[in-house]
């Protein structure tokens, strides 16, 4: 931690390049890998590298969240799903080569356009300055450096972006409802525990005192 908190500039630069290099490489591998399982594994690698980049920025909390949530939960879930699905790899690859030229062309043009855009980065310095001075509510400026990462996130999320935080919760709620709607089926004949019914059932209904005659059985019609 000490190393990341106050690293030498050269080390930071090195770490950045390594991390982002691996990130881009593994992202490519996610798309290009033959087996879906490999893709997911590369995805996990991506997440780790991205977490590393967050650490470089000093956002430890985000880095940890990324590892815990994305690697620990999401990616693992993906792995299970992918392993359970029976996919024909050949069929998936079919047409890849046929569409490669056009796809590659598109990607190249897009890349060129984005590079063209990126050239303007430095020219936009002034713009960023103006917007920083114009902005009436600049959340980060008010918070001192010594405040911890989590506290600051909390302050921003629950105060300035209270609305969006709650709205994101709604998004998740919708996702949950969606998952239930799409998968949940009421099957006939499933036995459920009805706790309320159990509790409310009077004692007489629960206990049957039977006095079966010798050789006869009990009438079982409850």
């Amino acid at each position, binding site marked *: 931690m000490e190393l990341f908190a106050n690293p030498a500039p050269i080390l930071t630069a090195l770490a950045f390049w390594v991390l982002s290099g691996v990130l881009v490489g593994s992202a490519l591998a996610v798309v290009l890998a033959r087996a879906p399982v490999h893709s997911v594994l590369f995805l996990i690698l991506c997440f780790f590298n991205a977490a590393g980049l967050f650490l470089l920025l000093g956002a430890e909390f985000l880095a940890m969240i990324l590892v815990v949530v994305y690697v620990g939960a999401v990616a693992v879930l993906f792995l299970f799903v992918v392993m359970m699905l029976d996919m024909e790899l050949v069929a998936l690859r079919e047409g890849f080569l046929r*569409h490669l030229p*056009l*796809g590659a062309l*598109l990607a190249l*043009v*897009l890349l060129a*356009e984005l590079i*063209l*855009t990126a050239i303007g980065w430095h020219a936009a310095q002034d713009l960023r300055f103006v917007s920083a001075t114009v902005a009436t509510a600049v959340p980060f400026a008010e918070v001192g450096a010594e405040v911890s990462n989590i506290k600051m996130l909390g302050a921003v999320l629950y105060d300035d972006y209270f609305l969006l935080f709650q709205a994101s919760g709604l998004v998740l709620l919708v996702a949950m409802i969606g998952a239930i709607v799409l998968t949940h089926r009421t099957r006939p004949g499933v036995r459920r525990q009805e706790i309320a019914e159990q509790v409310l059932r009077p004692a007489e209904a629960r206990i049957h005192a039977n006095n079966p005659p010798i050789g006869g059985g009990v009438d079982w019609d409850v």
Partner: protein
Amino acid sequence: MLVALVVFLPLFGALASGTFGRRNRSLANGLAVVPMVLSAFLAVVVWLTLPETPIRQELFPFIQSGGFAVSWAIYVDRLTAVMFCVVTLVSAAVHVYAVGYMQEDASPSRFMAYLSLFTFFMLALVSADNFVQMFFGWEGVGLASYLLIGFWHHKPAANAAAVKAFVVNRVGDLGFALGIAGIFVLFGSVVFEEILPLAADVAEVQWHFAGLSFDALTVTCLLLFIGAMGKSAQLGLHVWLPDAMEGPTPVSALIHAATMVTAGVFMVCRLSPLFAEAPFALEVIAVLGALTAFFAASVALVQNDIKRIIAYSTCSQLGYMFFAAGVSAYGAAMFHLATHAFFKALLFLGAGSVITALHHQQDIRSMGGLAKKLPWSCAALWLGSLALIGVGVPGVFGLAGFYSKDAIIESAWAAHSPIGSFAMAVGLVAAVLTAFYSLRLLLLVFHLPQDTALAASVRAEQAAAQLDGEHSAHGAHHHEDAKEADASGAHGLDSHELDSHGSDSHGFAGVRESPMVMLLPLAFLALGAIFSGVFYHHEFVGDHAHEFWGDAISLAHDPLLEAHGKIPFWVKVSPLVAGAIGIALALWLFMRNTALRTTLATRFAGLHRFLLHKWFFDELYARLFVRPAWRVGEIFFHGGDKNTIDRWGPDGVSSLMARSGARLRKLQTGYLYHYALWMLLGLVLLMGWILFSTTAGAN
């Protein structure tokens, strides 16, 4: 609130009856009749409580575009109040009557709904406070009239008549619309209250066109009058009115006698301050009105269809109203409008009663001696006719027409102009003719015995005409020019019967008087025909005219008021004398010297034919307009449209469209990755374009 109710109750009735009355006859009748009667009652309340200043109630804004602002508003002054009463009272009577008349019809709710809808449009027309709303009502009544004339749409003749009414009115409406445009150009507004006081200011404005200069106001007023001519069936644009008798009789009574056809007169009166500044336009109106009065009366002399006779009579009376307006006697015109509404509706409804009793037989040659069998209808027709002729004792009492027609003739005399004298002379001649044809109708229908031989031949003729009509209806379409002439010309002669199985075989044995529900409205209208003149002539045209009308119409040049008390006795009694001559002539020809009738008819066969064919107007129009237009249309249709425009335009373009559409549809493959590819392609191209164009734009 009250005035809004008067206007909208009929609309409510129309919607309610048309929507909920489809299954149930009495519901259909009730839903239309009750709101209508209520509206009539409220209209009377409005009339009695009318304040000094006009009521103006704005409902909501209609169009706002630049300097052009129009609202839906109800404007009620004395003029509107008169029309309110006339329209709603007659309409209520006709609604009640229609309950009986349409008893056996298959779709009463449609009929009632149309009838109420018409009333709503008419009320919207008369309560308009601007030209646009008036035009709305104007077109609305035209539409309702079209629907009602063609109500029995299985009759080819009814359809032809409906189309004819619509087309002829279109000519008038074009004039009206141009007139409104002219008004807007002149005044920059279409609201009556803003325009009318300014009429004198624009009297000098000239319009230059094709090197000539025209008096702007005169041109505008003439254009507006063309609109009035169409709606009010004045000479030239009158041809639709007689044919409109194909509609059910209550329709004829309400629309084609009492209300819609008077819209033109109403419009001229409403705009009287405008017309007052356009003397030339007034002269045109007076001459055309007088000519119409004479022309229609002359045609009515020899017609055989009972409804057509009354229709021509309507046409003629409208002529009276117009020439009254033409000599600036707007009060007299409105007076005649009001009284005429009552007695003409009475005549029509009485005639309708006869027609139903005879199972839709309309030809008077096959009638006769019905006075005993139909005493009430007979009384109604007599009363209506006498009111129409204008019978009365000067200074004591007279029927409605006595006062109003008198006022018109006196105004024409008092105008002291060549036009006025001409109008008066023509009006008197027309009055003689009016008395004559009225008596002829009464005598032939009720009092003379039926001429069985003639009746039989008439029925044979009708049967043939019906066959012919059906044939031409089913006939090939390329004969339509011939058919058009046929529908307008030859068809005019014979009446087209709805009911071929009706009275044809049996005589008048089963003829019975109409039910109470039809007789009551007759009684009500009869009251109007008797008393409307004597009660109100002081207000409309007499001593109280100034306080009665207020600013509603222009009384500035009213000849009758100017010449007040200085009208010689001979002028006053002249209409009465004219009527008496007509009556005497008719009695002589039909009761005494019947042989002379046939002699006259054969001696003046040409004239007889001329009149029977309504001065050959329909034939003239067919030759002058319909057929040339048809031929030009053919040329354009085959040469221009089919071979040029269709071939290269729509057909060519549409096949191109269809082909490119098919190509585009092929892109919609249904494959997800194709769609994604499209999106990315679009993205890359759009981004490239925007980057290129903004960079290029910056340099």
